[in-house]
Structures are given as C-alpha cells and as structure tokens.
C-alpha cells in the first residue's frame, strides 16, 4: 500500500511539470501583460515602465522566465506578487480557508441530499418521487450557476431582505460565527444546488447498477430485509464508482466555486484568481494553477486509496 | 499414413502477466505449452479439456488470431507460422473458425445477406447478381430460408444464428473449419440440429474439422480423433475408440467418470476427482495433473512425463505408461 502511494506521488511529478508548462505558455500567449495598467497612467514614462519590466524580470525570454520560476517552485519559493511584492504562497493560503469553507459546506450538503435523493429514486424507480427528482435535477442542470446566484440575491437579499447579498462578514463582526453562517447560506446553497443535481443522478445510476447484481438477489434469498441489503451490500458496492467520480469532479467543483465566489464577493481563492487574471499577476496565476493541480492530484490519490480500502480486488492484487 | 492436412508441432502460446501499475512483466501464463497435433484430410479432430486447459488458445493460435510464442503450424505442407499478413489473408480462405456465441460475432446492424456477402467482397470473388446467387446458395446449404438474407441477426434464434455463422465460414469453400465450442450455448434439441448439419456438410463438401469442446458426448459423437488437454498440454490423444473406451491417462479416466449420464442408476460408485484445475500462471511441478491424480507417484511431482506412442496412434503422456 505504501509503495503504491509512493509510486503514485512519483507519477504525479511529470503531470505537474506538464501542467506548469502549458499554464505558463498560455498565460504568456494572452494579449496584454502585467505592465498594461501602467500605460494608461500619464505620470509614468516609458522609461519607468522599462525599468519595472527589468525589475520584474519580464525582459527575459519566456523560457528563461519559466526556468527561474520553476526552480523557485522546486525549492518551495512560489514567487512574489508583482503588485505589493507579497509571497504568492502566503496570498493563496490566506484565501484558502474561505474557499474550503464554502466548498466543503456546499459539497457536504450536496452529497447528503443528492445521495439520499439518488438512493430513494433507485429504490423506488419510476415512482412519482423519482420522476420529480429526475425533472428537478434536469432543471437545476439546465441553468448556469450565475443565474441561480443572481436570482438568489434578488429574491432573498433584495426582495425579502433575509440574508446579506455578499461578502463574508459585516464590518466589525469578524468573530461573530452567526454572522458568518448568515453570509455563507446563499453562496453555499447556490453552489450546492448544481452539485446536488449531479450527485443525485450519479447515486441513482450507481445504485440501480448495483441492485441488479446477482449478489443482491443472494442477499434477498438469504432473508435479509431491505435496510440490511441496502446498507451492507448495496452501499459499499455503489460507493466505489461514486468515490472515483468525486475525484474526477474536483476540478468542476473548483470552477463552480470560482463563479459563486465572484457573484457573492466571497473573499476566497476564486476571487483571487479573477483579480489576478485581470491584473495579469503571473506569479499568482501560476501559483493558483499549481495549487489547483496539486489539490486535484491529491484528491484523486485519496479517492484511489479509499477505493483500494473498500475493494479487496484492488487491494490484494 | 496420409499426409495430414494440418500439423501442429511444439506449439507454445504464452501470455505475459503485467503488473497493474507500471505494466511490467511479472509472470507468464503458459496457456499452451508444447502441443503436437495432426489432422488428416476429411477427419474430425476433437480437442477436449476443462477451463484453463488452453484448448481455445490452441484453436486461435493455429489461425494466428493469437500469435504463437513458439512451434510450427503446417497447413497443406506449408509452414504458416511466419507467413506475412497478406499471405495469411489468402490462407484464411481455406481455414475458417466458428465461435461459441454466434451473436457476438455477427454485426447486429448488418443484414444476414450483407454478413454473408462480406467474405466474397473482401476476397474480391463475386459481384452483383453472382454475389446474390452465392449468398442464396449458402443459405440453402445451411438450411435457412432465402428470405433470411433481408433480416438482422437479432431476429433469429440461437440455433439459426449458428447456422449463419457456419454459412459465413463456408463462403469461400475452406478445407478446414475450427469450431470453438460451436454448440455449447445451444439447447440440447437445437444442438442436435447443428451437429447433424456439421456432419452433413462434412460429407457434402469434404471438410476437415477441429472441434474444440468441453462436452465429451458431443466430441464422441462427431470426432474421429481426440486430444485431451490439461493445463496447456495434450495428456492423451488417439482414435475416438481408444480415448473413450481404453483411456490410459488418469485424467482422461476421471474426466469420463465425471460426465453425467442420462441413465438413472448408472452413476459409478467411485468418488469424483478432487480439487480444481490449477491456474496456468502457476502450474504444478512435474506432471501438472499430479496434485489431483489418484495414482500419482513420487516422480510425478518432479519429472514431466513425455509422450509415449502406443499401437494404433494412441499417445499418452503419463509415467504409468511411459515405462522405464
């Protein structure tokens, strides 16, 4: 098992290098640059800009820039922001808790509700409940996340005034947990909505697949009642594809969080990414790309380990 | 003795066992491990064995649907083991295979007419009206109505689909047909129909068959020569009468004793053969049958027996027969 994890970690190194090269290349191919903001400022001369370019190392060829950045990365130095010169890793880690709070709460909620809907739909296939869940999921998946976000703000924040329309805290309420929860509800629900729809579908088909297996018939022929059959026999088998899917779905979850954070002004990594994109903050953008890639790789590794723990055919071969 | 139509010498087909992650070779499955066979023209050779015996791999290796690892396959006097692709294509007109599950080998979206026309088109043998006539002939030959040409595989029963499979194999008038469990998926009443068809076609077209089957009743009904395989090797071979009524290898004896008979009260008193067929990835030492053999001796676990020829073309690979 340990050697398996070790090998997987080693395998992810070329993957990370590939991601960084593609990310770096695309970033530099995009029009404009970090110095574009200065060109609009009449008090800054061309000489000033040239001087800043040299200071930031942007005068060097792209591949040299890449190697400088990459060798820094390899030693744990994620670089410094162009504006403000703050360490990139620090900037990202500062935003991380907010994002993980939003993603974690939305994901937990979505999996809880989505899986319940999916299991009930599979157990009572073609029932009224199943039909409603199916059409509900289709509706939720048909609209873009930002539309739900704007509608939620319009309805609950503006019309009804029940909840704040954005941000994470009211001024001076940074330590008030209740205030945080009130701010969290809308973005969490909006982000959870689409994930719930997706997971109810995944769970339903995973359970349907499992419930038609021969061993489920054996479980029934043994005299086990429905809860025991579902919990002991169907659930572990259905969980396997779902865990694998969770690993694969992580990037989609990340981009969903990005959109939601932007709509609700949630001060997480999504906002950081959008701001960095506007400012062409290369070091921050690269840091974000690498962080996301690492997160997804680790997520998939965890998923694979969980599957190996669940399935003796994977574990013992 | 007549020159055999097909001769197999020292055929070995090994598969690498790859590790899950890095696809490194960590072992070898010796699916076929030194098999000698010969079929005379117009004869039926039966290959019997249980799962893991390698009987299916032998059939596919002869046609080079799976490339053999070592050994020679000589067909009509030509060593075909190293023929190039183009030459092999020409050869496949004269050697055909019929599989167990006709459904999976028939394209569900093609009509029976198209399926049967394909061999003629691939080998550029017939076109237009001539082609339609040839397809109609094939359908008649296997006892299907002419309208079958316009229908799709799913509209047919298992037995009828197997007739289509046989018709396709016959299209280019082959000399040798390898049947890989051709009647195993069929109900017994339909199985009889197909066996009778195979026998009639053999007489009418002068065909030679290699019939691969786990069903000893089927093999004894249709075969002239029989080879019994166990874990990649032929343990006993010879004329039908010798194998079924004078078996020398303990495995052949046990196999015959295990066959249930449709005659109540005929069950022999002796205990069935114990144990399972071992994995061909880890075959036992010496004679591969020794852990299950009721008559195993000390040398059986150390030394693999060599094939011993008895009178009448009966060959046995067993230390009980091998003499000193």
């Amino acid at each position, binding site marked *: 098992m340990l050697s398996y994890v070790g090998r997987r970690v080693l395998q992810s190194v070329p993957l990370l290098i590939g991601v960084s090269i593609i990310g770096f290349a695309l970033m530099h191919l995009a029009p404009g640059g970090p110095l574009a903001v200065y060109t609009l400022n009449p008090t800054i001369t061309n000489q000033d800009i040239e001087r800043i370019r040299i200071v930031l190392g942007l005068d060097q060829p792209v591949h040299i820039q890449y190697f400088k950045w990459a060798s820094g990365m390899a030693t744990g130095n994620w670089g410094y922001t162009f504006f403000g010169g703050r360490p990139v890793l620090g900037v990202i880690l500062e935003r991380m808790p907010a994002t993980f709070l939003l993603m974690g709460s939305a994901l937990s909620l979505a999996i809880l509700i989505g899986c319940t809907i999916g299991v009930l739909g599979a157990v009572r296939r073609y029932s009224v409940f199943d039909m409603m869940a199916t059409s509900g999921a289709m509706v939720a998946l048909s609209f873009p996340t930002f539309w739900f976000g704007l509608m939620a703000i319009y309805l609950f924040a503006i019309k009804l005034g029940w909840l704040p329309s954005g941000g994470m805290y009211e001024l001076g309420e940074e330590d008030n947990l209740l205030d945080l929860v009130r701010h969290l509800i809308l973005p969490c629900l909006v982000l959870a909505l689409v994930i719930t729809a997706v997971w109810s579908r995944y769970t339903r088909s995973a359970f349907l697949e499992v419930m038609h*297996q*021969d*061993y489920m*018939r*054996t479980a*029934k*022929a*043994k*005299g*086990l*009642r429905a809860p025991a059959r579902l919990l*002991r*026999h169907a659930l*572990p*088998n259905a969980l*396997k594809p779902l865990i694998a899917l969770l690993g694969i779905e992580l990037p989609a979850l990340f981009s969903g969080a990005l959109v939601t954070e932007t709509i609700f002004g949630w001060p997480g990594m999504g906002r950081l990414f959008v701001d960095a994109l506007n400012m062409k903050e290369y070091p921050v953008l690269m840091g974000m790309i690498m962080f996301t890639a690492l997160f997804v790789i680790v997520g998939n590794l965890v998923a694979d380990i969980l599957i190996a723990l*669940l399935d*003796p*055919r994977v574990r*013992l071969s | 003795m007549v020159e055999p139509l097909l001769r197999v010498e020292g055929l070995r087909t090994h598969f690498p066992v790859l590790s899950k992650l890095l696809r490194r070779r960590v072992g070898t499955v010796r699916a076929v491990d030194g098999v000698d066979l010969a079929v005379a023209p117009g004869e039926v050779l039966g290959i019997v064995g*249980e799962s893991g015996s390698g009987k299916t791999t032998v059939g596919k290796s002869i046609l080079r649907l799976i490339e053999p690892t070592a050994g020679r396959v000589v067909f009509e006097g030509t060593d075909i083991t190293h023929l190039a692709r183009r030459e092999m294509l020409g050869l496949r007109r004269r050697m055909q295979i019929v599989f167990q599950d006709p459904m999976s080998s028939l394209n569900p979206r093609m009509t029976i007419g198209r399926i049967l026309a394909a061999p003629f088109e691939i080998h550029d043998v017939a076109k237009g009206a001539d082609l339609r006539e040839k397809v109609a002939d094939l359908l008649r030959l296997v006892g299907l109505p002419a309208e079958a040409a316009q229908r799709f595989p799913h509209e047919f029963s*298992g*037995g009828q689909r197997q007739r289509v499979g046989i018709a396709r194999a016959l299209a280019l008038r082959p000399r040798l047909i390898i049947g890989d469990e051709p009647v195993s998926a069929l*109900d*017994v*009443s*339909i*199985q*009889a*129909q197909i*066996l*009778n068809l195979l026998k009639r076609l053999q007489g009418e077209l002068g065909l030679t068959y290699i019939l691969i089957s*786990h*069903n*000893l*009743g*089927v093999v*004894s*009904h*249709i075969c002239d020569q029989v080879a019994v395989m166990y874990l990649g090797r032929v343990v006993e071979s010879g004329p039908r009468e010798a194998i*079924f009524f004078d078996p020398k290898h303990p495995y052949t004896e*046990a*196999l015959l*004793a*295990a*066959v*249930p*008979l*449709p*005659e*109540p*009260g*005929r*069950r022999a008193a002796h*205990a*069935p*053969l*114990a144990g*399972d*067929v071992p994995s061909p990835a880890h075959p036992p030492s010496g004679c591969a049958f020794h852990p299950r053999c009721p008559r195993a001796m000390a040398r059986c676990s150390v030394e693999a027996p060599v094939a011993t020829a008895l009178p009448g073309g009966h060959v046995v690979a067993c230390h009980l027969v091998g003499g000193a």
Partner: protein
Amino acid sequence: MDAAPAVLEARNLRVGFRIPGGTMRAVDGVSFALRQGETLGLVGESGSGKTMTSLALLRLLESPPAELAAEAILFEGRDLLRLSEGAMADLRGARLSMIFQEPMTSLNPLMAIGRQIDEPLVTHLGLSARAARARTLDLLARVGIARPEQAVRAYPHQLSGGMRQRVMIAIALACRPAVLIADEPTTALDVTVQAQILALLRTLQEEMGTAILLITHDLAVIAETAHRVAVMYAGRIVETGPVAALFARPLHPYTEGLLRSIPRISRVREATLPEIPGVVPAPGQLPAGCAFAARCGFADDACHATRPVLTPSGEGREVACWKPRHG
C-alpha cells in the same frame, strides 16, 4: 415412496410480464409438490419458464414488471402468497433457501466470505457474532473447503468457481432449511467440479433431510441426482414422474425427443442424432392447442385444436399429451 408429505406445493402458478399491449406469460399454470427429503428435478430448455418458476416460489421476482399469481404456494402449511414481505424474509434463507447458476457473481465481491455466511445465522437464529463464526467454520468444513480458518478471511475473487458454489451452499444450508431450490447450480462449472458439487448436495441432503428442487437444462444431471422429475415446455409442465420410469419410458414426445437428442458416449455411432425440428415458440405466441404440436411428429388436428392437461397415467406419473408414447 409417496409416503412422505409435501413440504412445498405450487398450485396453478403463473408468472406474467407486462409488455406494451398485453401480458407475456412465462409460466402458465404450473403445479407440483416437493416431498420431504426428496430431490425433484425441474428440467426444460431456455424459455421453458423453469427459472421464473424457481424465483417465483421465493417471491424473488421484481414486481413490476413481473406479475405473480397462483391458487396457492404452500410451504410447511402456509400460503407464501399471503405472507407479508417481512414474514417472507423470515422464511428466506432460514426454512427456504436458494442457490444460483453463477457462483462467480452471486457473492458480494467486497465482503469476506466468512461474514457472508455469518449473516443468515445472525439474522435468523439470532446468534452472537462469535457463535455464528463457530457455526460458519463448521459449515465451511462440511461443504468441503480446506482450512476454514483461512477461508473465512478470503474474498470471492480469490476462490475458484467450484469453491464459490460451495460457499453459496454453505450460506443456503446454514440454518438447515426444509427446502433448497438449486437453479442450474453446476451449469457454469467444469465437469469434474460439477461431479463434486452434485455429490456434495447428495451428501448434505442425506445428513440434513433437506428437500431439493433442482432446476436444470441437463437431463443427465437430473438422472444422477433427482428422485422425481417434471419436464417443462413453453411455461407448462408436460410430463412428470419418478426418474427411473420417466427416463426408461418417456410418455411425452417432447421428453422422448429430448432424451434421444443427447449425444452419448457409445461404441456405435449413429449417423445422425435424432433432432427435434423447429424452435421453442416465443412466450406470448403460444398456439391454442398443444404448444409442442408444431414440432411433434405425432400431432394431429386434435393436438392443434385443444390443449392437453396433465393426466395421471399410473406409477405416480402424469402426462399432458393426447397421443402419449409407450401408452
């Protein structure tokens, strides 16, 4: 011989499937009685309805789409059709067990086999985990698995097909049921392993006195294992009787045709095997008269016009035929 009372009795059992535009009858009025301690073979080709019958007895068919009806399914004096789902669950695996054709897929791949055998013991007998495990080890030894202490920790994929079927038998017989329904228990196995499993079933039957309903397409398996046999064709029983008499002198032309079409190992080879022409009629396309008439060499107008019903013909035999053989 017929002194033993019936432990499981099906009366006019019917199974239909709802399809667009009607109901497809897979089982059409099947009646039989399984006596205490005997083996009754239910034999038929694909589409005969034998597997549907077996699943219907344990109420394992998914409904919808299946529709189950019967005058009664009597088991130990109770009508299974009148039991609640909970009461039925209490019987399954305890008094009335079943094993299936595919030992490769019938066991949960994620659960060690020890736990899979413990389950019915804990569920039905209320044993503690420790007591159940002791019984499981004993059961594994009795179904012929070497080193039970290691076997309980094994997972299904580590066992051969024959071993898995032994585990299935251990699960089914764990609570000493009155009836075991075995649906093609050896069809997926090699012939030497089939002989082992059939011998094991015979031995355990003698030890436990379990009545076995053996469902198979293989008449030879019936001949070696069953005391009585019922032959099914197109959803109905066409002939039934003691094995020896039925095999020696089949009354129904279908039974006779089946027996004759089996290729046998004999010194003299027949030039052609006797075959039954044609194919089994599709369910839902059954003729008004005898379902076999179209394939039968003896059928006349009466056979095509009216359906024959099972009629006693002496020696505990029954046949549904207007023109029985050897009659």
